[in-house]
């Protein structure tokens, strides 16, 4: 089968013929229809994120059609449309046992962890447990948007126990930030305020249905958010940057009893310094505020997301996707780095 193979760090991927992976008894052979290109993939190619032994096939955001099933597979049959969850959890450790498989003690990721090759390839072998049926109403590209970008945003909104009619602000309007907006709309937010420093990102995010946008380079976002919420602050703030300054701004933007969701995963060291002596006292203690971290996504969220997208409660039409053939994968990686698209997607 054809695959884009990472052979040398910092070098373009090489498209070549590789043997079809072997199908274990609990596995499904998925004919890959589409696969998203992730920032994580770029970090692996550039060597920022350790990959282990090379050559290796990356790619963890796949959707496709069941080509063949292992002997013990009971839930899938040939021809079915499917979406993969790349997170391999054990199902047995303490965290898995209470439904937090995002923190599984032996967490591995298809297409990221070295022993489990990914789906920048015509076929992928995926454990049955990691597949979900993709309803006919949900396109393959929408499937990629679910397992690549909606999943962490949806997890964040869900973890915040977001209630209909609540107000929210989102710091950072990149791909996951805009997905957070879509999830918030689906959960019934009454007001969504977006904050970024990039004019282009702000302009793009407006299409997603923001009530207000704030360029935090031009005005103090905390002050503006308080004005927009009758002096109180929002019910829930989402921090999708992973930066000291925006984490503080997000906390300061919430009302008394408000919640701040830290969704941003920085690739550098972060210190959360409440600058002035009474910063912590006023913004956390007196407000009885919460800071809640959301990381990744959990298994039980996939059926929820699929149903909500199927019912059009979450509508991806404002997203900008670019579909490319496998042959253009290296250009795709470049475009992903430039951040012009919600997702660049390889199609087979």
């Amino acid at each position, binding site marked *: 089968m054809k695959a884009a193979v990472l052979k040398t760090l910092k070098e373009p991927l090489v498209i070549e013929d590789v043997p079809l992976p072997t199908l274990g008894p609990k596995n499904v052979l998925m004919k890959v229809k589409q696969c998203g290109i992730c920032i994580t993939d770029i970090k692996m190619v550039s060597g920022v994120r350790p990959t282990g032994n090379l050559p290796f096939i990356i790619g963890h955001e796949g959707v496709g059609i069941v080509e063949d099933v292992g002997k013990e597979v009971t839930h899938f049959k040939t021809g079915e449309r499917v979406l993969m969850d790349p997170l391999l959890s054990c199902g047995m450790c303490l965290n898995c046992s209470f439904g937090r498989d995002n923190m599984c003690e032996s967490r591995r990721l298809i297409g990221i962890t070295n022993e489990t090759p990914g789906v920048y390839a015509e076929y992928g072998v995926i454990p049955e447990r990691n597949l979900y049926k993709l309803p006919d109403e949900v396109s393959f590209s929408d499937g990629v948007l679910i397992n690549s970008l909606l999943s962490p945003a949806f997890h964040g909104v869900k973890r915040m126990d977001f209630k209909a009619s609540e107000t929210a602000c989102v710091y950072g309007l990149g791909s996951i930030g805009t997905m957070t907006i879509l999830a918030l709309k689906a959960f019934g937010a009454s007001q969504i305020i977006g904050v970024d420093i990039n004019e282009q990102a702000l302009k793009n995010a407006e299409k997603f249905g923001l009530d207000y946008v704030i360029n935090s380079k031009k005005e103090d976002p905390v002050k503006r958010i308080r004005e927009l919420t009758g002096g109180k602050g929002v019910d829930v703030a989402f921090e999708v940057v992973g930066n000291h300054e925006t984490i503080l701004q997000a906390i300061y933007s919430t009302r008394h009893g408000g919640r701040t969701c830290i969704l941003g995963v*920085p690739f550098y060291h972060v210190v959360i*310094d*409440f600058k002035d002596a009474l910063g912590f*006292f006023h913004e956390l203690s007196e*407000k*009885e505020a919460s800071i809640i971290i959301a990381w990744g996504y959990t298994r039980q969220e996939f059926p929820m997301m699929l149903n909500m997208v199927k019912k059009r409660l979450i509508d991806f039409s404002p997203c900008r996707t670019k579909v490319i053939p496998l042959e253009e994968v290296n250009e795709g990686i470049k475009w992903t780095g430039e951040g012009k698209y919600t997702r660049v997607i390889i199609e087979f």
Partner: protein
Amino acid sequence: MKAAILKKLGTLLTIEEIPKPQVGENDVLMKVKAAGICIADMYTLRGERPIKLPHILGHEASGVVAEVGSKVKKFKTGDRILGNAIITCNECYYCKNDLEQVCNKHTIVGTDGGTQGAFAEYYKLPEGNVYHLPEEIPFDQATVITSPLASAYHGVRIADIHRGDTVVVYGGGAIGYHAMLGALSYDSVRVFMIDTVDKKLELARKAGAAEVMNPSREDPVKRILGLTEGRGADVVIEAVGLNQTINQAILSVGKAGRLVFMGAPFGKISFEFENYRQSFLFKEIKMTSSITNRKDEMPQLIELVRTKKIDLSRSVSLKLPFEKINEGLEIVKNDVGNLIRVVLEFD
């Protein structure tokens, strides 16, 4: 009636005869039997909390009903009662949205300027701030319920403790100690208490702590990880409010853990870890601060104390007659003997 009056900051209180408070139609007048001395009183005496002088302090009182206003329905003369001194406005956004603990305009009767406190023979509160005190609970213990236990228990409820959880408490003072008692009211919970004062650790041990740790002798984070198979605690309650303990608290909590900040830090706080992702992000923790308390928590709290699910028998470390109030304030101010609570008694 006799009352202890603060006339000038930096001077002793003077006990004088003054008229009894006037009872409004919704008020209950308490004949005070016992009143606790709180750290908050120290802030006032040090001039750190604005106040109008002369002032009568005291917000942790229990006693019997002396008189009721014409519209009071639930109480009659002679009833044993305790008071919760926090009056919420019932009108602000937060009061209307079931968040009375963060009411914008709350007053604490006895602490805030213009109110009259419980360091006096009689103390007046609105009916909504008064609770029946069961026979099983002595007056001195009842004062502990009104403020330190109420605040601590509010934080314990925020911590969302489950059966079988490991709960770590940083700080064995009045709030931390009572947070520990609150945590122990849940079945099969083990509590580790951390403090730099051995006397406080001894007391915590007697009151049910499974393990105690003195950070001046050992690294509590290391010990906690050792006692939890490397996982960290399910719940951590921080009741000190120092940068170091706040950071240790975050390092002590395990994946999916809950952290409650009960110490009100007046110094600069900075979360800083050797590994931000591993120590913080990837643990997916929830951190919440806890402030004051809520009225809906009082009845269950009184019931927990009545049934001894929360045992306050060690909470009153010293009882003094009301006349010795200045001596009591001095002891609390200088933290002599690391007492949990000093309570004044009226005959």
